């Protein structure tokens, strides 16, 4: 496949063209098909989506039609959202994500700005420390939280989880915003200071109006971290405060044995849908965020 590269599309021989199209088509299927399949299957009965007789039943859904008269049923969703109260988890996720993103960006912007504007040696050591912290697996930190959180009765609350996620998020946020602020010319706020502004006023009136592209990109990644987290949320939240991902995991333990695996399938589709929309609107920002750190070397 590595032979498939060419400078311009015009000079590709037919065979190579077919090979490229075939490979990219295959990748497209590998990447997207599992999600479409699960979305389709979430409207079927378990006997069809996990058919012992014939996998084709998942497409035509004979059992679903037989029992319900229609090929599309919402029972999985009803069971998950109403019976198992998935809506609570959705609200909790919304709360956690909102507060994590806001807090993380506020303190991260201040810190990242300071790191980009100070020329002393200690900024380097702070950035290195942040890099080491970024490498720590969250689950190892959770082992350190539990004992003190139990002792001081902090365990189980949404607030605690938000603060922990903000902290875990900081190393990445700092690096990203630091490199973003470095691209904003220093002369901008230097001249404001010459005109008599304090450092904070310069930040407030000169930097804040121009920093939004970088802040939005960073905010997207903070959101994804909070939204996708499993290690912290599953360990630090009590049952009634669970967010979506640990809630789905709890479906696996309890309801799968009762034959309600479709609850979990529907919940997974419900949790993926917002990400779908997010990528649709913010594709450019996500791509630029992913490449930002890398392309600079």
């Amino acid at each position, binding site marked *: 496949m*590595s*032979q*498939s*590269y*060419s*400078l311009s*599309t015009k000079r*590709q021989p037919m065979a*190579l063209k077919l090979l490229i199209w075939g490979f*990219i088509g295959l*990748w497209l299927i*590998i*990447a*997207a098909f*599992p999600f479409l*399949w699960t979305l389709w*299957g979430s409207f079927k009965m378990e006997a069809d989506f*996990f*058919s012992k007789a014939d*996998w084709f039943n998942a497409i035509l859904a004979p059992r679903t039609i037989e029992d319900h008269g229609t090929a599309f049923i919402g029972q999985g969703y009803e069971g998950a959202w109403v019976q198992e109260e998935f809506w609570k988890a959705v609200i909790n996720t919304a709360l956690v994500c909102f507060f994590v993103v806001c807090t993380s960006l506020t303190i*991260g912007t*201040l*810190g990242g700005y*300071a*790191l980009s504007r*100070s*020329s*002393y040696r200690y900024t380097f050591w702070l*950035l290195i420390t942040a*890099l*080491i*912290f970024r*490498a*720590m*697996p969250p*689950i*190892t*930190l959770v*082992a350190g*939280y539990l004992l003190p959180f139990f002792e001081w009765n902090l365990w189980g609350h949404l607030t605690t989880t938000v*603060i*922990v996620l903000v*902290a875990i998020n*900081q190393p990445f946020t700092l690096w990203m915003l630091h490199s973003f602020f470095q691209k904003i010319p220093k002369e901008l706020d230097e001249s404001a200071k010459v005109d008599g502004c*304090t*450092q904070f006023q310069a930040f407030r009136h000169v930097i804040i109006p121009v920093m939004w592209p970088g802040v939005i990109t960073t905010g997207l990644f903070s959101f994804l971290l909070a939204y*996708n*987290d499993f*290690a912290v949320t599953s*360990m630090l939240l009590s049952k009634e405060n669970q967010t979506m*991902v640990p809630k789905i995991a709890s479906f696996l333990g309890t309801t799968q044995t009762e034959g309600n695996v479709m609850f979990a399938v529907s919940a*997974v589709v419900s949790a*993926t849908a917002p*990400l779908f929309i997010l*990528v649709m609107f913010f*594709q450019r920002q996500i791509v630029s965020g*992913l490449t930002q*750190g*890398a392309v600079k*070397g």
Partner: protein
Amino acid sequence: MKHSSFFWFILPTATAMLLFIALPIVSVLIQSVHTPHDAVLIETENCGPFGCTTATTIDQEATRALRDEKPLGKFVGLEIYFDRGHLAITEVAETWRNAESIGGFFADLNNLPFYRAMAFTLTFTFTVTPLMLVFGLMIALGVNALHQRIKGVLIFFSLLPMIVSPLIGSLVLFWMIDSRGILGSALQWFFEDPDLSMKASTGLTWIMLIVYGVWHAAPFSFIVFYAGLQTLPQDTLESAQIDGASRWQQVRYVIIPHLMPLITFVALMQLMDNFRVFEPIVGFNSEAHAASLSWFIFNDLGGETRLLSSAATSSVLTIIGVSILLTPVLIRTWRDFNAKS
């Protein structure tokens, strides 16, 4: 920037990291050398007409008092590190004495849970990382050769496996690979074995997890390499073409050297990220065949009896592993920084 204003700007974020990243690491270190107190026992002697019997009862009050006084437990040094659930020093030494060959030694070592988890974690890390690099590079080269208009759609769908939570992504694949799911049925048909189940064998479970790992991580390398391809110096490539370089030679001698810094970056990041593989093991429900170090910690922390000391010990060992993989990243950052200033 003045020291004082720097201090105030950095204070909130530094406090957050200090309290919730630095201190927990210290806390984990301390917990790993402590173990919960044993219950305080009292022996009472009951003498009756048929002689004396001693009964042992737990002194609830004294036990609680002791636990309240020192919630950390008692100091045991490195004992937990060496016990059977972790490094299993005695068992390893015994295996070493009894083993007839090196191969037999490693086979026996596989019976110890920690070493089994370590074996999976390392295999996962060192297969997924090169595979995702190669796969990502192939997609990037392919997409780059295609027509401009469909690139947006391609990038959109490529981002999905990476952006969904690892637990959700692994569940989606797990349901397809189930023996009653579409992929599971396809494999049964392909190998003409109606009893084939990916969940039943260790080898197949490992392959399944590695396939998931590549599926999840390839988009990242694709996006980064694709961005790198956009900055490819066209004149170098053209002169290579004039010199008669074949397409393969162009890739080998022009494109890959150009992308090398990015390849190193992605590889180093991925080694660290893959080493902490955790959610897929929960999603694929694979702990019987493949557990990782992170899953060990999760397992100790969850459940009725929270084995905090054991989890802390596994955490310290995981942190040591991560630190080893982190060293080249730190050296690189150090070099970059010194080159700049």
